[in-house]
């Protein structure tokens, strides 16, 4: 998703429906610019579609999709697979994302990115996924990533606020 350090205080949406939420997420900003679309989802996975677009070509002289949009596609599907698994929206930050490219996507073909969240701990979410251009068994790319959950624990936030207030009080006391 977006990169590190989120301080969003929006209250969590209690049920996460990827099909519904996609309409909002993909109407704007970078996902909107790419034209990402919702394709499918399960309990712990989400599949998104990146339609073919001439503006996303990666080479000056060949009609080959750039690899960058595939990272964006898989990054977006990663975040949504985490929210699917948790059943709720909580801000997450990408810590590490690795993509292995097996082959270029077919010319003029859409690319689908399917990511599953296979493990969630208190502070981290582990995801893996693939990108394909029609046949899920013939992958264009595979990926693995780790995301950090931010401000998921209200007690942690409470402690943080208290610590900050104490530090300020101490500073004022000294000054």
């Amino acid at each position: 998703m977006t990169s590190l350090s989120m301080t969003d205080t929006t209250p969590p949406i209690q049920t996460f429906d990827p099909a519904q939420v996609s309409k909002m997420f993909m109407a704007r900003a970078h996902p909107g610019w790419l034209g990402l679309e919702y394709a499918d989802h399960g309990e712990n996975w989400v599949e998104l579609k990146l339609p073919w677009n001439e503006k996303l070509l990666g080479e000056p002289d060949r009609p080959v999709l750039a690899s960058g949009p595939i990272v964006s596609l898989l990054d977006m599907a990663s975040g949504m697979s985490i929210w699917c698994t948790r059943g709720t929206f909580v801000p997450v930050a990408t810590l590490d994302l690795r993509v292995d490219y097996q082959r270029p996507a077919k010319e003029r073909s859409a690319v689908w990115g399917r990511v599953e969240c296979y493990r969630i701990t208190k502070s981290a979410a582990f995801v893996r996924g693939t990108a394909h251009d029609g046949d899920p068994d013939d992958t264009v790319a595979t990926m693995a990533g780790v995301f950090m959950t931010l401000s998921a624990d209200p007690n942690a936030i409470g402690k943080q606020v208290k610590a900050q207030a104490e530090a300020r009080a101490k500073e004022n006391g000294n000054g």
Partner: protein
Amino acid sequence: MAEAHTLPAYAEALGISIHDVEGGLPILTVDYSSDVEGRPGHYHGGAIAGLLENAAYAALRAQLAADGREAKLKPVNITVQYLSAGKPLTSFAKARITRMGRRNANISVEAWQTDRAKPIASAIMNILMA
């Protein structure tokens, strides 16, 4: 040399351009806009990866041109480390070719905003040349 620094359609569409050339290798830049935005007010991780990748390709193309070589570039992999939030500011990226082989190049890239010593993301890549 000008041709060696031509950016692909994807880079130009995203607003990426060449800021400077340093030691023969380009520094790429992108201005903050809705096109690169993820969570409101922050860069999308994918857009940062796009900037990093383009800086790696641009560096490799420049090096190949300097070496008088012609090759098609095939990305093999990228590992991105996100180090801090991409704030709504202009970003820069420059690659270092760690090893230039005959068929494979190992490249490391860093992206930064106001302070080059505090990168917002880094990546390592393998790119095959055919």
